[in-house]
């Protein structure tokens, strides 16, 4: 009713069109939930009727119980906290460092040319291979894991942010030069603000990469964290624990992605673009 009051100027036909759009939206949302519920139900039923062995296939009920046990023993927040801490720090450091390097490379095209083949090789290298070296250098603890999370997103951040900087047209820079702007002014007043959308997109990719780095890092060395739980659960054949950890991981990764996306929307809105 209130919606119709707000848009009295629309014709009958247009309202019908809007309604059909809204119905479609509702259908899509409903189907999303339905799919989730159906999967869980089938999984549960399959486990109860022993179509799959609950010992190796777990089940939603067993998984929930596993989470509950973690919660009651007080370990849940510890593991979540550690993994979250490693990821956030690795992600922020990777972004900061990557952006700084990208700025440097934008500033000096010659340096960019010199370093180009090294960047390509570093990008191609599976960073996980560096794991043992990191452990020796940074110790078998949180530091190594953070560095892994940082490394895995660093090169991608450098490359995509630099590409964003370089995509800002020469003509906008020409305009700044006709106004008498210095290179620093061109960067801070035109290139950086104009590349905010690209940088935010790079962040959305690198936040996922940081999760990969941290979990792999935890596989290699850790005494706590979700990656640790997964490895430990696998070793003692507690698949409930493994699946529970993965579900928690899913939720956390999704939350962090949406946080970055939300930040992006907020910044773009504030900048009026």
């Amino acid at each position, binding site marked *: 009713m209130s919606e119709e009051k707000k848009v009295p100027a629309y014709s009958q036909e247009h309202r019908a069109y809007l309604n059909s759009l809204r119905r479609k939206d509702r259908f899509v949302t409903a189907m999303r939930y339905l799919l989730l519920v159906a999967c869980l139900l089938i999984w549960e039923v399959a486990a109860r009727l022993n179509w799959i062995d609950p010992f190796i296939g777990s089940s939603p009920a067993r998984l929930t119980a596993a989470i509950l046990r973690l919660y009651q023993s007080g370990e849940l927040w510890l593991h979540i906290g550690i993994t979250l801490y490693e990821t956030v720090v690795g992600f922020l450091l990777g972004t900061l460092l990557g952006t700084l390097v990208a700025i440097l490379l934008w500033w000096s095209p010659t340096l960019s040319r010199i370093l180009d083949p090294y960047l390509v090789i570093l990008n191609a290298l599976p960073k996980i291979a560096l794991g043992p070296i990191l452990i020796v250098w940074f110790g078998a603890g949180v530091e190594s894991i953070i560095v892994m999370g940082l490394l895995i997103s660093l090169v991608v951040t450098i490359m995509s942010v630099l590409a964003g900087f370089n995509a800002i047209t020469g003509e906008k820079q020409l305009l700044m*030069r*006709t106004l008498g702007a210095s290179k620093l002014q061109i960067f801070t007043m035109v290139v950086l603000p*104009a590349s905010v959308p690209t940088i935010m997109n790079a962040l959305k990719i690198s936040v996922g990469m940081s999760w990969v780095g941290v979990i792999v890092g935890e596989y290699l060395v850790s005494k706590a964290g979700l990656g640790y739980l997964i490895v430990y659960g696998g070793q003692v054949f507690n698949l409930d624990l493994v699946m529970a950890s993965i579900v928690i991981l899913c939720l956390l990764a999704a939350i962090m992605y949406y946080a970055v996306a939300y930040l992006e929307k907020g910044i773009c809105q504030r900048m009026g673009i």
Partner: protein
Amino acid sequence: MGKTIVEAKDICLTYHEINGETQAVDHLSFSVAKGEFVSIVGPSGCGKTSVLSMLAGLLEPSAGELHLEGGRPGYMLQRDHLLDWRTIEGNILLGLQVQGRLNAQTRENALSLLKTYGLYDFVHSYPRQLSGGMRQKVALIRTLACSPDLLLLDEPFSALDYQTRLTLADEIHAILRKEGKTAILVTHDIAEAISMSDRVLVFSGRPARLKGEHAIHLTAPDSPLKRRNAPEFKEYFDTIWKELDKNV
């Protein structure tokens, strides 16, 4: 006419690139007096933008002498290049900010230009909310806000549709006359050049040389739109057209 504020003597310009060199300007000489409106016409790619770039101090002539009175000239490009994330106010203050000359007085002056030329309602709007013609007018005000003595206009109307182009040419001409500016307009539109200027310089094909020079005297009011109907208009048009048409 006032004193000479631009004097080019035998200027040349050659671009060097990995696969060869391009001579863009060849022994070009001309001068512009204070308060004059001069247009440059010439075939596309002949070196008109290159000449403006030298006048703006973005490029050094390879040879010859170039003298400019007054401070940094204002430059207006074909596209407005307003910054999307700045409001209209933020955009017109850009030059002042860059040059470290933004204070209460220069800001007031810039805003009064917006007021005078009918764009004050948009002071807090963003560029995307404005039409092409309005955006180009904002770009002009951004240039004027730095109070340059000399304005360099590089085909400022060519990205606009015909209707907007005629009206805006009229408006901008009036603005420049009112503010008492000296202007050099580059265009490939002969009618636009005749209707707006006191003098038209005709350039040859690349490398640009001065092929002809025409002082324009029209028995019509000082408005480009009305000047187009002056009886002498067609004569000037034909002369310049033929001059451009002749090879080299």
